[in-house]
């Protein structure tokens, strides 16, 4: 898995896939939501993409992607060579470029071996442009397996103390325990994705602002996803929220995908939406 280029990673991806890990340390911050949205967004922009659920025992990605009833074989079956990749990969019905590799529901977490994961990623790297790895919470085995082979990491963070702290710990792990770190290659590119952002609470001083979090973590900001009802609506029906073009979260994820692909897109939804008279009154 060579082919590292700092300036134009996308051009290089013609040969081998870029591996992106969606990670956080803390649970429930929006990793799976982000994995589904990013994978769908990349695929819609014409890139062959596979999204892998590393959350062995607690598989959820298939639900968020809306393909839970089509799961036959899973990631662990492929690692154990009980099924081949073609049998386990589920092609998305909405987008031809997108495939899902589900996690297994029952097996123990040690089923993900470094060699096994490496073998599967290597095989996928030849057929795809992007491999998105949805990491489980924590800093244990599953999470370290999800990030080990990564080229890029998107650190999903909520504007909240424990999430920010855990993200920082994750950064330490990315820079010391990954394949790139161990083999002294260029380090993993790390990006901050701030999710569940509530500008109204930020304005009231009740919530850490984008600037606060960035100042603490000093990472490249790839996107800010607002707290949005559309996320639940999307997960209820198994549609990655990026497909909801009307919603703020959907637009924010689409912007994030564009930025990842190198477009310059200004950040949106950082301010409270102007609501006419009252708003103007208080802002002077």
């Amino acid at each position, binding site marked *: 898995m060579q082919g590292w280029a700092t300036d134009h990673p996308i051009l290089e991806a013609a040969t081998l896939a870029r591996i992106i890990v969606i990670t956080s340390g803390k649970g429930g911050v929006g990793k799976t939501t982000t994995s589904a949205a990013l994978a769908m967004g990349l695929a819609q922009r014409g890139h062959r993409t596979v999204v892998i659920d590393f959350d062995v025992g607690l598989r959820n990605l298939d639900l968020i992607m809306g393909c839970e009833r089509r799961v036959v074989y899973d990631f662990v079956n492929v690692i154990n060579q009980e099924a081949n990749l073609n049998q386990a990969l589920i092609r998305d019905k909405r987008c031809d470029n997108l495939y899902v590799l589900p996690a297994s529901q029952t097996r123990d977490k040690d089923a993900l071996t470094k060699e096994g994961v490496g073998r599967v990623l290597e095989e996928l790297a030849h057929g795809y442009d992007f491999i998105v790895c949805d990491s489980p919470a924590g800093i244990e085995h599953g999470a370290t397996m999800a990030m080990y082979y990564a080229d890029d990491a998107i650190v999903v963070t909520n504007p*909240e*103390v424990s999430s*920010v*702290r855990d993200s*920082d*710990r994750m950064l*330490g792990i990315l820079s*010391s325990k990954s394949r790139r770190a161990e083999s002294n290659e260029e380090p993993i590119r790390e990006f901050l994705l701030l999710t569940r952002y509530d500008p109204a609470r*930020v*304005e*009231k*001083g*009740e*919530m*850490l*602002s984008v600037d*606060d979090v960035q*100042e*603490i*973590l000093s990472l490249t900001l790839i996107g800010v996803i607002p707290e949005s009802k559309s996320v639940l609506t999307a997960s209820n029906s198994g549609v990655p929220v990026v497909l909801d073009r009307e919603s703020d979260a959907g637009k924010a994820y689409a912007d994030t995908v564009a930025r990842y692909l190198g477009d310059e897109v200004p950040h949106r939804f950082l301010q409270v939406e102007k609501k006419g008279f009252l708003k103007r009154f*208080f802002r*002077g």
Partner: protein
Amino acid sequence: MGLLDYFRSSRPKGSANVAKERLQILVAHDRTQRGRPSYLPKLQQEILEVIRKYVEVDMNAVSVKYEQEDSHEVLELNIVLPDTAEGRI
């Protein structure tokens, strides 16, 4: 204080600032721990045992500081001896 002033001045007082300050301290501390070699706690323990053969010092008498500079690492040992001669065995 007018209504507008109230809204303006309420901003820096919010709990978000407390969160930020706490995080800055915490993250800075976490980061200094991060690059430390894993043998440090054991090293500290053994040095303490050797010192205690000769001088009665308490558990916190030995501190080990590890710092990474551009081209080299510094290991700083700090041993606090008791100020009276009574400590000698």
